[in-house]
């Protein structure tokens, strides 16, 4: 390879040295700004060549930089900006996949249940022994239950219900596998599905990380409110995290404290996941300890009964 052919393979070949003014500011600012198509970032991220060369020397010969030190300064700015952009993009892409998956999972589950209700109602008109729910759909589809008077459309509908329920189960498996790679601490503390729902409701992991824990505590309460207005659910006081074992397993009198503790730890977990990605098992222990303390309060005066607690559900 001749020198000039070699040079054109370097990342700096088509980069205008003037572009480096301001690259630093962008670097320090919101990562989102770094996602633009600046030629520096593109050159680092998309360039390819089989054989490395003595880039510092070639860049100086090429007058891309005055000397080796100046070259390395530019290389630092360039790799920082390019890697920041790449990281932000990859993380956002991973989040979005998870958000779609968990929403699709919920849609499939809800639709399967609604159709199963319809199926049961219909099957009840031709067979007094019709069972209930998705499990009845399965029996019908497998032929384990035979309708008193055979009905082709009812059996076909049962098969559709089963397909949807299976799809929901596959999606759940995907979510359970994927969430820990995207948010290892949040997934460990909340369970992968609840973690994915929180990410979905907030709009992304970064959005969970940036919300105060009080907001995390009521995330999802709006949905529950709509369900309530439609007549499906009791009045909501609480967000999604009320399905967390640590909250459900706590005496109703103390559920508010438990929910606050859980929301606080989930908020820390989301921040660790977003900013460092490192798994910190000590968070699990801290939450467990906190919940134990809270639960011990009601255990001590256990004879107080559960007066006034039911409205929490």
């Amino acid at each position, binding site marked *: 390879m001749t020198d000039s052919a070699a040079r054109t393979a370097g990342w700096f070949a088509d980069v205008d040295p003037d572009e480096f003014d301001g690259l630093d500011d962008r670097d320090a600012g919101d990562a989102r700004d770094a996602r633009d198509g600046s030629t520096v970032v593109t050159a680092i991220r998309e360039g390819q060549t089989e*054989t490395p060369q003595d880039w510092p020397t070639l860049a100086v010969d090429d007058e891309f930089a005055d000397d080796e030190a100046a070259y*390395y300064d530019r290389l630092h700015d360039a*790799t*920082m900006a390019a890697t920041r952009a*790449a990281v932000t993009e990859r993380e956002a892409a991973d989040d979005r996949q998870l958000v779609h998956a968990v929403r699709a999972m919920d849609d499939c589950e809800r639709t399967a249940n609604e159709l199963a209700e319809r199926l049961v109602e219909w099957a009840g008109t031709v067979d007094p022994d019709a069972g209930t729910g998705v499990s009845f759909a399965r029996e019908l589809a497998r032929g384990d239950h035979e309708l008193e008077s055979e009905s082709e459309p009812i059996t076909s509908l049962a098969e559709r219900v089963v397909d949807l329920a299976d799809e929901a189960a596959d999606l759940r498996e995907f979510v359970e596998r994927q969430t820990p790679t995207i948010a290892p601490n949040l997934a460990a503390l909340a369970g992968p599905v609840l973690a994915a729902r929180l990410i979905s409701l907030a709009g992304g992991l970064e959005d969970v990380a940036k919300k105060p824990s009080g907001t995390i505590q009521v995330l999802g309460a709006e949905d529950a409110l709509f369900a309530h207005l439609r007549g499906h659910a009791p009045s909501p006081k609480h967000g999604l995290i009320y399905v967390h074992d640590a909250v459900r397993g706590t005496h109703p009198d103390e559920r508010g404290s438990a929910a606050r503790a859980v929301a606080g730890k989930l908020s820390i977990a989301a921040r660790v996941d977003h900013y460092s*990605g*490192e798994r910190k098992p000590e968070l699990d222990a801290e939450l467990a300890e906190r919940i134990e303390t809270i639960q011990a309060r009601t255990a001590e005066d256990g004879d107080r009964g559960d007066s006034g607690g039911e409205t929490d559900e």
Partner: protein
Amino acid sequence: MSDDLPAGVERHPFDGTDRLATRGDPVYGEPTDGDWRAWNPTRSKLGAMLELEMDTGLEGGDEETVLYLGAASGTTVSHVADFAGPTYAVEFAARPARDLLETAASRPRLFPLLADARKPATYAHVVESNVDAIVQDVATRGQARVALENRRFLADDGRLLLAIKARSEDVTRDPEDVFADVRAELEAEYEILETSRLEQYHADHLGVVARPRSQ
């Protein structure tokens, strides 16, 4: 065996105990004393190799160039950048790379790259030729292949400093068998100078020092 540490790496007292240390901004909550930061060999395979007095050939100083494969959040590569010159850090997972950026922000000769070490053509337009050392700690299947693929960056008298994790190749096999296979595969392009189990610091890991075979 060697008791020469690279320039810029010293045994420095922390709370009365001498520990490996470099000078730079702290990264992972390690103890510090003035500019010095302790280098924890239980969190770093290269740190363990130095503790075990393997002859890494590292000299330290601004002229020494290093390609680091599997940089993760920058625990080890931060120490390397502290004592060496231009240091290229390749990592392919996005979350740890975010930390790596922070580590690199205060180290002007540390260049972070989000790339797959199995595809050197995606960074050969950035990483210079003839680096003095390749440090590899990718803990993934195909560790020998990664070393072979990246041979193109290494100077003829350079060193490959490799940590092989047996369990990454095959959890069910005896680590010794895994190491033998990896070594045999390396022999195609490298001459192995020294190996040592890192057991004391890292279970089922083998440290390897090798140099490229002349073509």
